[in-house]
């Protein structure tokens, strides 16, 4: 990946070229992933195992992280509102719309990328350096089919579920802060008047896309691991950085599309 310290002595033009090459490599893995999603051979239980690894083992970390993020956002928003319009009646409604439309997915996906992306890249990278990936290829098992596809499916499903749960947690912690710091009752805070079906569709679309992107970027980085344990370390770092970068770029793309097709009220 061009974003990491390994590339720090590279010229900006070469770095941009590296970014494009990496994006192409991820796109190629993505194309093969789609191919094997339809025609691949699933090992019994492989998706369930990955769903457990990605979902269950990330849940606590994500809930804690999103609780803090929700509390901080509400506190800072309340402080700023207090200076401008000392009326908190719509703070919950605005916060909820923002959370559903963007923050739950986009902010939540970043810590998710660190937890899930690092795990995927480290696991696959370790298999590469111990020649297990070559052994898979010798056994007529395409590594994309055998390793990436189950993680992709699990990451899309469990990533979405976790980001939605994270959204609820962030809303709950925001509600608590609103009551404790600004005397906004949960009844006032729980205001769905600004939320539309379009917001929900946009938010869930982001969650689904980020879940898939984390698995693809991290899977590709894992498969591209070169060298020994140092190579696995680099692959892990690159997977996290690349996943976060992909989330930010995808957020811009989906938000732009949403701006035209699902305009915020």
């Amino acid at each position, binding site marked *: 990946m061009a974003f990491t310290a390994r590339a720090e002595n590279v010229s900006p033009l070469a770095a941009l070229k590296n970014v494009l090459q990496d994006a192409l490599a991820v796109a190629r893995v993505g194309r093969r992933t789609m191919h094997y999603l339809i025609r691949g051979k699933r090992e019994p239980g492989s998706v369930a195992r990955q769903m457990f690894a990605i979902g269950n083992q990330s849940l606590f970390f994500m809930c804690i992280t999103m609780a803090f993020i929700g509390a901080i956002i509400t506190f800072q928003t309340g402080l700023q509102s207090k200076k401008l319009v000392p009326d908190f009646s719509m703070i919950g409604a605005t916060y909820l719309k923002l959370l559903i439309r963007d923050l739950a997915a986009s902010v939540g996906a970043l810590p998710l990328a660190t937890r899930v992306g690092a795990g995927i890249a480290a696991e696959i990278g370790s298999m590469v350096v111990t*020649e*297990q990936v*070559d*052994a898979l*290829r*010798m056994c007529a098992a395409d590594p994309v089919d055998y390793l990436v596809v189950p993680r992709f499916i699990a990451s899309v499903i469990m990533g979405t579920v976790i980001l939605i749960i994270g959204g609820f947690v962030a809303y709950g912690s925001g509600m608590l802060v609103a009551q404790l710091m600004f005397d906004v009752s949960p009844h006032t805070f729980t205001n769905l008047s600004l939320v539309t079906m379009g917001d929900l569709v946009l938010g869930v679309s982001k969650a689904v896309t980020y879940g898939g992107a984390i698995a693809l970027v991290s899977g590709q980085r894992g498969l591209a691991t070169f060298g020994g344990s140092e190579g696995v370390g680099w692959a892990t770092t690159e997977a996290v950085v690349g996943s976060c970068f992909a989330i930010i770029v995808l957020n811009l793309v989906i938000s732009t599309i949403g701006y035209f097709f699902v305009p915020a009220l």
Partner: protein
Amino acid sequence: MIRLEDVHLAFGDNTVLDGVSLEVPPACIYALIGPGAAGKSVLFKVVAGLLRPASGKVFVDDEELGPLNEIELARVRKKIGMLFQNYALFDMNVAENIAFPLRRLFDLSEEEIAERVAERLERVALPGTEHRIPQSMSGGQKKRIGVARATIARPPIVLYDEPTAGLDPVTSQKIYDLVQEEQRAQDTTVMVISSDVAGVLTIADRVGMLHEGRLIFDGTTDDAKASTDPAVRQFVHGLTEGPL
């Protein structure tokens, strides 16, 4: 039959294979020897289609690998079994490891698979170890599991990368005997990389020696022992004086 024609391969500035041409006749045990970092394991990966050479041609059963895409290469790899230097066993139990190629290549019932696995384990002298985890087993046992996995699908070509590295002399000889018995039983074409020259020459029909990415010797076992090439002579006879 395996044939390489003027194969070149480099990793960055590091030339690993420098114009290697060789031919391994069918039903032959071909020992590939040479000092460390000579390019032996890389050559195996080129033969298996796991690495693509920068130039030159590689043929497996008269089919050139160069123009093949990954899906077509997977078809060719079905003809090849491979034992990896560091075992490359999966995080599964012994039976699942050995059965893995069968499950991917054939549509067999669980009973048939279990039968074939038990037969392989019997053959490599590890009966009854189906449910053990390879990580808890010794190096020699892992090698034998690797041999069982490489041969369970009865491929016509088997590549053994350092089958005796790190093993005691008795276990090494047992592994060589196993390789030879397997080759005789299935009439397979076998390539063996080994740093244990004396041991591998006891089973090899032909020998090739790689040095700094070049094939500096290719001939029969007797020719190798009688070679006057200083590097070949030094390596085959384990001499301390010489160009290596």
